[in-house]
């Protein structure tokens, strides 16, 4: 969660916009945002890594908490007037807080995830997921809620000399293309796993749910000029993130890595 939290009144007061866009990097699954504005339509934004979000709003017909939720996704927005209760009555119970509209991710993000086999000397780089959600003050002319394709391109590998892991969020992506070529003189090991996160309840680890890993590209060593290319579609599975291992005996090898993710199959 970025601080200070985005103010939903700023688009009204400062920019004369007809929407509030909450675009931020989340730090954990517990991140929650509020808006004081009334929405006519809420949708996942085009740059979002998070595919599913909850819209919680004050509902006087839903006691005893008076809180109702609607889950929106990259394929479905929430259409209708949702009034934030900013003053006076309209309190969530039992907290007694004002019934403002709340926005928070449904997808799980584990900021402490370590791939199986991760050990001392290894490094991990996480692309923290972007939470992009748009609250329209008026009904938009069209209800297109799809996300843009996400493209990652790397020309240099990580600088660590151990196992170097890169974590790419891919919530709800039903089609992915991964292409890797080693362009360094020394052999480079490349591996990709699909990860589905769970909420880990604590220690000991044996008694706690663990993140699930699925091998998508098995670990293999590639000489200079060689690589691997693979298309992963929803028949293989949908994952929360890709864990990519790039290991070499030198730091920062020259590579060509392209990962393209899409909500739509090809």
């Amino acid at each position, binding site marked *: 969660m970025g601080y200070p939290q985005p103010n939903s*009144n700023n688009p*009204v*007061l400062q920019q*004369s916009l*007809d929407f509030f866009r909450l675009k931020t990097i989340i730090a954990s699954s517990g991140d929650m945002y509020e808006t*004081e*504005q*009334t*929405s*006519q339509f809420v949708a996942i934004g085009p740059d979002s890594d998070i595919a599913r979000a909850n819209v919680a709003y004050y509902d006087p017909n839903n006691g005893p908490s008076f809180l109702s939720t609607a889950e929106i996704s990259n394929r479905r927005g929430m259409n209708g*007037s949702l*009034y*934030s*209760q*900013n*003053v*006076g*009555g309209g309190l969530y119970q039992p907290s007694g807080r004002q019934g403002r509209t709340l926005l928070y991710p449904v997808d799980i993000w584990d900021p402490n995830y370590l791939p199986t086999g991760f050990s001392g000397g290894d490094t991990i780089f996480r692309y923290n997921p972007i939470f992009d959600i748009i609250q329209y*003050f*008026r*009904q938009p002319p069209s209800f297109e809620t799809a996300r843009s394709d996400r493209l990652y391109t790397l020309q240099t590998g990580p600088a660590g000399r151990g196992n170097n892991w890169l974590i790419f969020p891919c919530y709800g992506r039903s089609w992915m293309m991964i292409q890797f070529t080693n362009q360094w003189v020394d052999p480079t090991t490349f591996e990709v796993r699909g990860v589905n996160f769970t909420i880990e309840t604590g220690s000991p680890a044996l008694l706690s749910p663990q993140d699930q890993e699925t091998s998508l590209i098995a670990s293999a060593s590639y000489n200079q000029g060689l690589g691997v290319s693979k298309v992963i579609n929803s028949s293989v599975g949908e994952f929360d993130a890709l864990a990519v291992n790039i290991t070499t005996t030198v730091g920062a090898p020259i590579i060509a890595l392209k990962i393209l993710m899409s909500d739509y199959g090809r």
Partner: protein
Amino acid sequence: MPPTMKPLQPFRMPPKAPSKIGVPPDPSTTNPGQATSISLNQPDTLVQSFTYVTTASVETQVLYTADRPWVQVTLALETGGPVAVGVQSTLQPVSNSPGILLPNSGEPRTFWIAKGNKIYISSTSVNRVTVVISPLPWLQQLTALLTAVFQTVQALLSKP
């Protein structure tokens, strides 16, 4: 005969009329009970337009006090609302207001009001409301004409 020259007079700016554009009239300085002075020859043509920004409040505010004989007030909501408007001095609760809710589609609502009347506004969130206040010259002249006729008839009848 040489032309006579008038001595130069110091230039004085004409008194500047207070601008009302963008500033809602202050109800504390507006006297709704003052005598109506209607001109038949010089109808009022001043148009006012401004944006009123509501605040999240449980109070009802005065949006406009008519200081001219007849005006047409057009209100349009630019944001999501809810914004209640009306002639009642208490518009709360907004979601179940005794006034009317401005439609969040941006469709304008129009009031024709006579001098001294007030339009109130209330909201529970920050919203932008465009306000256009237009005179009604023909109605003003019609009122002035009727007033003149009435006064003439009254004067004739009062003669012994």
